[in-house]
């Protein structure tokens, strides 16, 4: 079967790389083609007709024409620009964190429709939701699941016994929670409070509408963020760059609405 010379797909721009004077190479995440790259000519000139439709964090319909190495982008039309994300420093940073994770956890041309839906839903939720941190945690847990790294939160990953109602330990290397006994044999793990265990299970197993009703305080939020962040870092074997930026913003308490 020969591929058509031109094709069109829905896509979200997840990475942009400058090329030459005014060109760019874009990385998209698409529902049916997985992660793909495209070449955009003169995208960085002010009169580029596509530039606004091909910005990061924009859900667009994109047309490609097949090329020898890279496919060339021939047109783009916005479906959802996620405008609230573009008007708020904290939301924009959360959005960039989401797409960086998608980029890191996917391989090119591997279809993952579930993850595409999750990403779109997460970006939409960021535009609406009150509890932004929970939106991020929900995304992280489900991203892990779709990438095949679902953490075991129900029973001890080493001895498979049911977990006691107490502080247990999360081990990135083991990929889940360890009971206090098994934790002694694992060099690196995070203590995980009972409340954090419960919330993580809700986030992992329920759909978002249930997870959204969970109330968490700052300490609990920080604990979950550390644990999942540590697991992500362990799996990727490197820092998630935009996570460091989110930390900077959290510290400076800058996540308030612009002009507020």
């Amino acid at each position, binding site marked *: 079967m020969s591929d058509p010379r031109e094709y069109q797909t829905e896509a979200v721009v997840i990475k942009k790389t400058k090329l030459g004077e005014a060109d760019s190479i874009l990385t998209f995440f698409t529902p049916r083609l997985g992660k793909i790259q495209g070449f955009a000519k003169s995208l960085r000139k002010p*009169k580029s007709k596509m530039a606004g439709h091909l*910005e990061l964090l924009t859900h667009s319909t994109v047309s490609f024409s097949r090329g020898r190495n890279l496919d060339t982008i021939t047109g783009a039309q916005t479906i959802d620009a996620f405008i609230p994300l573009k008007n708020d420093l904290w939301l924009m*940073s959360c959005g*960039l964190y989401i797409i960086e994770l998608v980029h890191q956890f996917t391989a090119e041309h591997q279809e993952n429709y579930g993850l595409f839906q999750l990403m779109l839903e997460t970006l939409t939720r960021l535009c609406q939701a009150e509890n932004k941190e929970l939106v991020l945690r929900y995304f992280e847990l489900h991203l892990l699941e779709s990438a095949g790294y679902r953490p075991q939160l129900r029973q001890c990953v080493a001895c498979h016994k049911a977990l006691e109602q107490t502080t247990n330990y999360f081990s990135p290397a083991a990929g889940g929670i360890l009971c206090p006994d098994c934790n002694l044999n694992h060099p690196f793990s995070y203590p995980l409070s009972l409340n954090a265990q419960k919330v993580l299970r809700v986030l992992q197993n329920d759909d978002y509408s249930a997870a959204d009703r969970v109330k968490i305080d700052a300490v609990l939020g920080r604990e979950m963020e550390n644990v999942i962040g540590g697991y992500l870092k362990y799996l990727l074997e490197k820092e998630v760059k935009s996570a*460091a930026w989110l930390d900077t913003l959290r510290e*400076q308490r800058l996540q308030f609405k612009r002009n507020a």
Partner: protein
Amino acid sequence: MSKQEPAIPANDAIGRLVQEFSKLPGIGPKSAQRITFHLLRSPEEKAKDLAEALISLKQRVNLCSICCNVTETDPCPICRNSQRDSAMVCIVEQPQDILALEHTGVYKGLYHVLHGAISPTEGVGVDDIRTRELLARLENNTVKEVILATNTNMEGEQTAMYLSRIVTPLGIKVTRLARGLPFGTELEYADDVTLTRALEGRQEY
């Protein structure tokens, strides 16, 4: 891709220069060859002029201690010019942006060059651009307005929003260059973000 032996050995004088030229942005192997042979044919003084210009570029150009623009004198001519309004500071990402703004001849205030923009996904943070120099400069109370003229892409927007957060509490007016439709474009191709902002920022006419 041809797998032929290169016609010019990389270690002779011509080959070396071709290689050096092809490292420059926008210059491929063919252009590099053309420039090299052009220089080879031109009089020796021309080549010397070029060489001297290259050396003085690195020796004489520094950053202005006030605005971080590239300059041969410190402070730079713009910062030294007493005719300019020192109560206004226009923040740009790179020195070339100053050239573009100066070309309009409309702006009479001072500048500040960040030499970059915040880019979380590339790991460029606040300390990697010249924000500390900016804040030090704003502390002495002479600046009344800060104009954010960073690019309107994701990195520029983030930088602008971040700077607005930290400069506003200092009691300084913070403005952003208007974002709307560029001159000479067609409305039908405009994207949602641009059109939304163009509508919000419409003016009586």
